């Protein structure tokens, strides 16, 4: 059985995965069906941050994210019976939020072409233990955010659902309405692009310091 670092990741994943257990959710939804505002407020406060984080990842605008959050949670008030309990409640909520975001706003442009990424092939760390170790030590939140911002909606969403929401491959496939194989492919390409972007930031930081503060 693996210990140490591997177990640490599993524990971390478990703690952020559940904002409220499904039994409590069902109880509150039943009360919401009877127009219990207190129950709605409790449910709202348990899940609003999670949905908002997803929407910020999706639309990158505080005002728009809040607007869609309101839309999404209002939908819960109107149709509490829409949740059938066959998935995590947060997954169901994110599905609603996703549809509303898609309806309200056009998708962002596809992945930008990083022509300069090809140039760093010789000097950038490859998929080697040393390369990964260097990135793991040096990448910072703002560097990751910068690189995530360069992904297409689907790739960025996939990374968010896996590493922020902690969804299984089946759950991600359900949210993104695609086969599990597509999810795996998307994740593979998304992580490759983020990794290349971070490597480029590291290289620039080390060379010219043009991206001050992008990395530690």
């Amino acid at each position, binding site marked *: *059985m*693996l210990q140490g*670092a*591997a177990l*640490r*990741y*599993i524990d*971390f*994943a*478990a703690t952020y995965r559940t904002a409220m257990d499904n039994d409590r959710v069902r109880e509150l939804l039943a009360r919401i069906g009877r127009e219990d*505002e207190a129950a*709605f*407020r409790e449910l*709202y*406060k*348990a899940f*609003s*941050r999670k949905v*908002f*984080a997803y929407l*910020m990842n999706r639309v990158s605008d*505080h005002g728009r994210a*809040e*607007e869609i*959050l*309101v*839309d999404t*949670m*209002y939908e819960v*008030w109107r149709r509490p019976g829409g949740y059938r309990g066959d998935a995590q409640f947060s997954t169901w909520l994110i599905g609603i939020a996703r549809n509303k975001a898609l309806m*309200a706003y056009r998708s962002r442009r596809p992945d930008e072409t990083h022509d300069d990424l090809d140039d760093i092939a010789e000097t950038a760390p490859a*998929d080697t*233990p*040393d*390369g*990964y*170790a260097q*990135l*793991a*030590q040096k*990448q*910072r*939140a*703002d560097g*990751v*955010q910068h690189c*995530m911002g360069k992904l297409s909606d689907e790739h960025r969403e996939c990374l*968010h659902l*896996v*590493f*922020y929401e*902690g*969804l*299984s*491959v089946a759950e991600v496939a359900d949210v993104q309405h695609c086969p599990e194989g597509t999810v*795996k492919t998307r994740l*593979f390409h998304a*992580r490759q692009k*983020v*990794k290349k972007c971070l490597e480029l930031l590291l290289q620039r930081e080390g060379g010219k310091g043009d991206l001050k503060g992008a990395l530690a």
Partner: protein
Amino acid sequence: MTQERFEELLPWYVNGTLEAEDRAWVEQYMKDHPEVRAELEWFGSLQRRMHENAPMVPATIGLARTMHLIRGDRPTIAERISAFFGGFALRPAYALAGVAALAIQGGVILNLLGDAKDDASEIRTLRASQVTEAPMLKVNFAPDAKEADIRHLLMSVQGSVAGGPGQLGDYYIRVPGDQLDAAASRLKADPIVQAVAVAPGLPPRE
């Protein structure tokens, strides 16, 4: 193949959602190939950085607006008056002879927003001639459109009711000037809207 399988399973090992059998396989692979721990560390670091990027907002973000929408589900004074007159406010006036008498003088406009400020909360007569305000949208809603759905729709276009309904069920909706066309398109696409037209403005009160 095993390296590929490891890389395919690793993200879900990191987020803790792998089935027991796959988890055991990954752990054995890492024991056999200790050099891949660096990749595990990188994923873990990526996961932590993404959580550090989570927006710092209170759990009540948007709650007040949501509660405002919810309370819109409850009958307002306008809806109660509408019910008294047999649903006049959301149906064409021609169905109600008594109200038609008033309509001869331009109709009676009842505001849906019971708690709205300024002139939107006052009764105004509708006149087709002189206009005094900026262009707005004249909207006809479906007869069975609920007020909550109307409110919700108007929120989505940043609209507010300037007047209505008139004798033919017309509502005058204010939207931001530079979004008139986009708002019109959005409203037209909604099933609770029967007609949308750009109006030069809201007629002055009598």
